[in-house]
């Protein structure tokens, strides 16, 4: 069965493109436009992996990681963070909050795909 990925991104153009790319690579993709919607989608669908932006309206990526860590079922789902911020403290904060990986924008899909495969293999 193909892995199901929840993609959380508030920029519609990027969300649509990444969804198409993931689907072309045989992943099943569900999407959310902000952290709050992402959280409820995650609880409802329990995806195999989540890819989330950090700076979004409502719940941001850091808060999302906290909520996942506190939840009995969501804590088992790997979360990959994508962000334009490349400062050490941003990356460290995300990893300390339990992110399975951190990709700095812009990135090429090959790097995202590597991280997806690594995170899915681990969990």
């Amino acid at each position, binding site marked *: 069965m193909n892995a199901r990925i929840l993609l959380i991104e508030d*920029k519609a153009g*990027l969300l649509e*493109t990444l969804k198409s790319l993931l689907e*072309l690579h045989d992943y099943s993709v569900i999407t959310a436009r902000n952290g709050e919607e992402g959280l409820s989608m995650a609880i409802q669908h329990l995806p195999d992996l989540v890819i989330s932006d950090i700076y979004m309206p409502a719940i941001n990526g850091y808060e999302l990681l906290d909520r996942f860590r506190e939840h009995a079922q969501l804590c088992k789902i790997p979360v990959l963070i994508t962000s334009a911020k490349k400062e*050490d403290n941003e990356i460290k904060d995300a990893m300390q909050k339990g992110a399975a990986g951190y990709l700095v*924008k*812009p*990135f090429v*899909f090959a790097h995202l795909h590597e991280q997806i495969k690594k995170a899915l293999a681990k969990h």
Partner: protein
Amino acid sequence: MSGQHFGNSTCCVPGIGDKIFRQALKVRTMNSTHTSESNALLSNASNVLAITAHEFKTPLTTITSIVDLLSTKLQTDHHMTPFYEKHLSRITSEIFSLNNMLDEMLTINNILSGSIETRKELLYVEEHLVPLKEQFHSLTDDGETFEINISGTPRKIFASPSQITRILTNLVSNAFKYSRQHAPSVRLDYGDSSLAITIADDGIGIPAGDLPHLFQPYYRGSNTNGIAGTGLGLTIVKTFVSANDGDISVTSEPEKGTVFTLVFRYP
């Protein structure tokens, strides 16, 4: 070969390199004599620049993703040709050049506004070079990347991970930009008390008259006409090398190539 040495001992304030330090001081002196309104304006301008540069990153990611989407679709449908492959790869490569310019602008903005933070930790330099090797493999038109040669027993240095990555990215990126026949080479020589990192290319070289000015902001070599660049990359390298208590030196010969050497003492 002509050479120049730029150690942190020549700098009166660790972490800030020569001219850029004078510029930062000038900005701060201006600030101290201006009203709080003009200080706020300067600070706002710096914030606007930082926010705008960050906002650019999302459309850049969308464009690289669209290129990846088109490449994948062309491959899946067996329509990919060397022509499409070459030019799609050029779009990605140009996007990353643009991104690099944005990063340089952001970094200089942070240096001048005094908001650069150097969070040091123990790290293996090799761990920061391997991802770069993969990155250059993905970004160069012909999938070329650089060689890493190591001598001695690897030891950790005490430095900021993001600044070490930035130093290596800038120097390797320059080496690719100016090299001609062969890919650049990177050497890590683990000595008794320090690590020497050497980045060498067989490129156009740097005229002797340019060497003393190489690390000044916006300075570009007299033989770099027609080659893209902001003239900020080496200023950032010098500033970060100093901030991490390292030394940098350069030797170069026009039409033969350039060698940058970084030295970091073990903690």
